């Protein structure tokens, strides 16, 4: 864009179709809230949401197979729908679909957010069986943001996407049906810290813009080295961009929000955040540090090393002493973010190491499914006050519900990276890539922390199987069709990816071989 004349932009609608579909559905959802009678809303929302996500998924696949992978950014270089982007879209859409099945559960969300907890209003709301159906459009908006986030080929779009994906989540976090105080607190914390960090992102963006004179990733990358005497601008900007992104993936020292939010938020939303958001965020990280700053990798890599190590260590060590299941899973997700970061480091800079990229993508798939599954199980273990979060309540679960406990144990083993689970191949792929990229020390730290991390997964298994059940142990909620479907799917994915990872690995390879377009 050079001042003066403004020509009409060209938009490749076909390419952007999945996104547009999701956003459109979201808008429709808002209209439904506005006009549909309350008793109808849910029954319209659910199919709408599911269809929208499924449709978007199909469109993505179609895009990948029919059109082939485009080699130039779309929408005037604002959005880059390339191999990795498509792959990430597919993951996000599937996981979002799965999470939606979880969200479709009256026990998850508050009857009426406006009603003060414990007030008579709330009782009425509950009695009338109200439901906060705004959840669905919010979800769709957020997912839309997630789709745009990793595909953004220009910092502004990325910022907007960041906000679009975050803002609905802030709200969703506050809508838990039980323990509303915790939920609301989580919401506030997430919101304040989130906006705080996005301010950093924005300022970084400003500085980079100041350096490069453009916010287009390609332009930035091509401007590197051409501008003299402005390096400080660049480095500080790069750092602040990094802060914004690392916050989203919950890397230390920006992880503080994760445990609190994961614990407070409705479990279904936690599942969504733990899986899809992580995927989207890593997509964005890769794009920024690769497409835009690829040529500076010798500068940012050491810092990334530090962050990765710190993240792995903090995640693993802090998790050991957790007593709340969701909180523990939050820390575990921090640790996994650390492992993923080793993958990011392995992808390196401009030379675009595709093995590492595909490894990373595979890891995201494997981890995403397992996480959703794990949280799905968490939603099913309940007692009087809602979900039985405290670990002590899980004692002897293996006796009361062998199958469920077994599946959960299996998920935990997958987190721990035991062979014949998807987690193992994820870890293996990433570590292998890292070793190939001369990041051996990082890998050693990785395995040591995984050994530490294994401890708390094992601890839960001990609780569930080896200790005698508590007298007033939690009951196992009869799962909704959705929930059981989620658990089954996740378990199946974990097994299949653990035994025959080849197909998905191939997909990831193809996606990676196209690489990020610049």
């Amino acid at each position, binding site marked *: *864009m*050079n*001042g003066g004349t403004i020509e009409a932009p060209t938009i490749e609608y076909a390419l952007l179709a999945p996104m547009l579909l999701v956003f459109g559905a979201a808008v429709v959802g808002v209209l439904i809230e506005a006009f549909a009678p309350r008793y109808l809303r849910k029954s319209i929302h659910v199919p709408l949401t599911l269809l929208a996500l499924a449709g978007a998924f199909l469109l993505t696949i179609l895009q990948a197979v029919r059109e082939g992978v485009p080699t130039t950014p779309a929408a005037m270089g604002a959005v880059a729908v390339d191999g990795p982007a498509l792959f990430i879209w597919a993951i996000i859409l599937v996981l979002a679909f799965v999470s939606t099945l979880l969200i479709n559960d009256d026990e998850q969300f508050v009857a009426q*957010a*406006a009603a*003060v*907890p414990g007030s008579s209003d709330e009782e009425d709301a509950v009695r009338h069986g109200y439901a906060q159906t705004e959840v669905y459009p919010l979800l769709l908006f957020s997912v839309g943001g997630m789709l745009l986030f990793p595909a953004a080929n220009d910092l*502004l779009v990325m*910022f*907007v996407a960041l*906000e679009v994906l975050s*803002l609905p989540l*802030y*709200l969703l976090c*506050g809508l838990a049906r039980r323990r*509303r*105080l*915790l939920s*609301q*607190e*989580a*919401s*506030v*914390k997430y*919101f*304040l810290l989130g*906006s*705080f960090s996005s*301010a950093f992102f*924005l*300022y970084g*963006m*400003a*500085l980079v*813009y*100041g350096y490069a*004179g*453009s*916010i287009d990733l390609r332009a930035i990358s091509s401007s590197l080295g051409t501008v003299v005497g402005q390096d400080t601008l660049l480095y500080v900007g790069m750092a602040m961009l990094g802060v914004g992104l690392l916050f989203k993936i919950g890397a230390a020292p920006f992880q503080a929000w994760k*445990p*609190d939010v994961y*614990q*407070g938020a409705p479990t279904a939303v936690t599942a969504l955040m733990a899986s899809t958001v992580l995927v989207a965020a890593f997509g964005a990280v890769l794009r920024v540090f690769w497409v835009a700053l690829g040529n500076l990798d010798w500068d940012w890599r050491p810092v990334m090393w530090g962050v990765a190590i710190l993240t792995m260590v903090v995640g693993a060590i802090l998790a050991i002493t957790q007593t709340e299941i969701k909180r523990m899973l939050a820390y575990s997700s921090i640790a996994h973010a650390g492992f993923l970061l080793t993958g990011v480091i392995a992808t390196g800079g401009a030379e675009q190491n595709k093995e590492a990229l595909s490894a990373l993508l595979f890891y995201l798939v494997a981890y995403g499914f397992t996480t959703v599954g794990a949280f799905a199980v968490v939603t099913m273990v309940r007692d009087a006050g809602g979900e039985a979060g405290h670990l002590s309540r899980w004692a002897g679960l293996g006796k009361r519900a062998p199958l469920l406990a077994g599946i959960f144990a299996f998920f935990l083993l997958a987190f721990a990276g035991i062979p014949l689970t998807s987690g193992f191949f994820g870890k293996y792929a990433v570590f292998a890539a890292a070793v190939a990229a001369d990041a051996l020390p990082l890998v050693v730290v990785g395995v040591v922390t995984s050994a530490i991390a294994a401890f708390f997964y094992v601890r839960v298994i001990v609780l569930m199987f080896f200790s005698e059940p508590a007298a007033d142990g939690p009951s196992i909620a009869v799962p909704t069709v959705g929930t059981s479907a989620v658990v089954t799917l996740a378990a199946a994915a974990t097994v299949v990816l653990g035994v025959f990872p080849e197909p998905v690995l191939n997909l990831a390879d193809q996606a990676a071989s196209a690489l990020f377009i610049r």
Partner: protein
Amino acid sequence: MTTHYLVLSALLFAIGGAGVLIRRNAIVVFMCVELMLNACNLAFVTFARQHGNLDGQLIAFFVMVVAAAEVVIGLAIIVMIFRTRRSASVDNANLLKY
């Protein structure tokens, strides 16, 4: 010439950040965040001027819109928690810890 504006924006950003850290009232904290965003806007406009292209100014508009959206969400959340706790102090909300 534009340096002063940059310094100013940096100062604003710092003030905002400091505010987030030291103020207790959620609203004020949130306002500080807004201040940081606006500091960014100033920076963008300045750089736009420096580079002689419009991107920066354009971005500023986008940021304002986003900020507005954030305000909506933020106020909603803060009001929600205020109604429950009868206080908007961020320090009261610390049930989730360790």
